């Protein structure tokens, strides 16, 4: 990513750093190194300290693999849910007008302000014993708490705002001229959306999707409360790390943590790619 000093990108006065400037740069780099680079190097070292073979053995252990599968499934599920409904919410908030729209707009940000543990607690209160929606779930024969549906709900809750907040500005910027033109030519609402709107907002959507996915695979607080932590069944990768740490099985914990960090790194790179296009 390119950031230019001057408004026009021309080198400003202080582009050639002096002694004080070098000190400031040094402090900023040192701070980033202590907070970010140090821990990253340590986890790689911790995971590989007993050799690459042991690392592979740990991350391919039965429970580690089933946990990773569940993590990815929940991530994909929650991301799909929040992408479809997120684009829908963004569209309604930008293009539609109705009483209470500002209130609805404010609601979207709430999951960012709620601690993940509290998000999990909400699901328990709604679907646990004596919960408001427990009769409904029972009637449908669904087990929500201590099972994957509850974990999906919790994951979807904490990652809800990303797609909405990425798509809204893009949608506003695109405007409605082309859509109107399509309608004039007799296109249906769905056709106009698919051929006109969607192509123009796709990078914003994809950036939102990558943010959502990154957030979902790293979640612990919410799923910890809801899952009940049955290894092999309702255990995600983060829960697996949490449990193996508790069991003092450090090699397993470090290996899975390193693997998860690698996956997130890939998502981060993809994220940067989409962001550059979305904010271009």
């Amino acid at each position: 990513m390119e950031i230019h000093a001057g408004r026009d990108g021309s080198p400003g006065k202080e582009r050639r750093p002096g002694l004080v400037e070098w000190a400031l740069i040094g402090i900023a780099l040192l701070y980033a190194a202590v907070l970010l680079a140090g821990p990253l190097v340590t986890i790689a070292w911790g995971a590989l300290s007993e050799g690459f073979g042991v690392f592979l053995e740990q991350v391919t252990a039965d429970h580690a693999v089933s946990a990773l599968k569940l993590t990815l499934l929940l991530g994909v599920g929650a991301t799909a849910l929040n992408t479809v409904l997120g684009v829908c919410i963004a569209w309604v908030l930008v293009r539609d007008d109705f009483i209470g729209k500002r209130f609805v707009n404010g609601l979207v940000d709430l999951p960012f302000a709620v601690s993940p543990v509290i998000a999990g607690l909400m699901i328990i209160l709604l679907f646990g014993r004596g919960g408001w929606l427990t009769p409904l779930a029972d009637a449908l024969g669904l087990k929500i708490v201590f099972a994957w549906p509850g974990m999906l709900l919790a994951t979807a809750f904490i990652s809800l705002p990303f797609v909405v907040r990425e798509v809204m500005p893009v949608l506003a910027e695109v405007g409605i001229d082309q859509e109107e033109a399509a309608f004039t030519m007799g296109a249906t609402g769905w056709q106009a959306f698919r051929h006109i709107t969607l192509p123009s907002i796709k990078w914003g959507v994809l950036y939102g999707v990558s943010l959502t996915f990154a957030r979902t695979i790293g979640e612990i607080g919410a799923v910890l409360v809801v899952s009940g932590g049955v290894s092999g069944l309702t255990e995600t990768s983060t829960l697996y790390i949490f449990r193996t740490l508790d069991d003092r099985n450090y090699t397993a914990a470090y290996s899975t943590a390193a693997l998860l960090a690698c996956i997130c790194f890939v998502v981060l790179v993809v994220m940067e790619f989409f962001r550059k296009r979305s904010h271009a």
Partner: protein
Amino acid sequence: MSLQTAQVSPAKAPSRGRVSLAWGRWGLRAAAVGYLALMIVLPLSAILVNGASGGPAAFWQDITNPVAYAALKLTVFTAVITTAVNVFMGTLTAYVLVRYDFPGRGLLNAVVDMPFAIPTLVTGVMLVLLYGPQSTLGAWLEGGGVRVIFNTPGIVLALLVVTYPFVIRTVQPVLMELDRSQEEAAYTIGASKWTTFRTIILPAISPAVVTGSLLCFARALGEFGSIVVVAGNIPRRTLTAPVYVYGQLESYNQRGASSMSVLLLALSFTIILVVDWMQKRWNIAYATP
């Protein structure tokens, strides 16, 4: 990443007088509002009702019992320290990133977002591995009388990592947009760099700094994943409020968990409202450039 409340002008809904479009519009409206009601309004109401289920006296007791009160105090204390440090370091980092050219600038700018992508639990594991009593660095620090892991410094350290991007990413775009002519003028009349920064740049970026610090503070209040690993969670010493909520749930005290949650929610909502107001007032967006 963006936490901005997108300031989009509400386009007046054009009436098209087409039955299918009207149906589609109502369908979308219902889907959007229905999803938010089900996912956000209903769960929040459940917490409020559960927290208040014992009456005001019980609620007061829930949040003022020694363990809960200590947890709350620790959470606010560590969040304040974290915010203070990251306000200073974040502003400095944003300034350096925007104004100077140096080897590694592109890399630094790219890794700023890393704490958003790395699972917070993994962040916690990394810190334990680096500063824990079994590590060389941890043992050395402990020899010097500083215990990091399973202690307050560890909590602050974890929060510093997790909230690292907030101030940087709010201040950076504002600095980039800043008109340089005032600074040039200040230099011309002989002002020092520090005077220029203090009197010209700082006032211009301060709304962004405040917004970033509030977001950082709100995030620090709710943090769980990294702290649960790093803190050791000793009641009245290193147990934070979110971990307290988890503990109460584990010991089947739902109301106690809900009461603390209501308090935390009230705190973060106030912050979000202030941020929202500030964004409207000064038109700041929290977004990467």
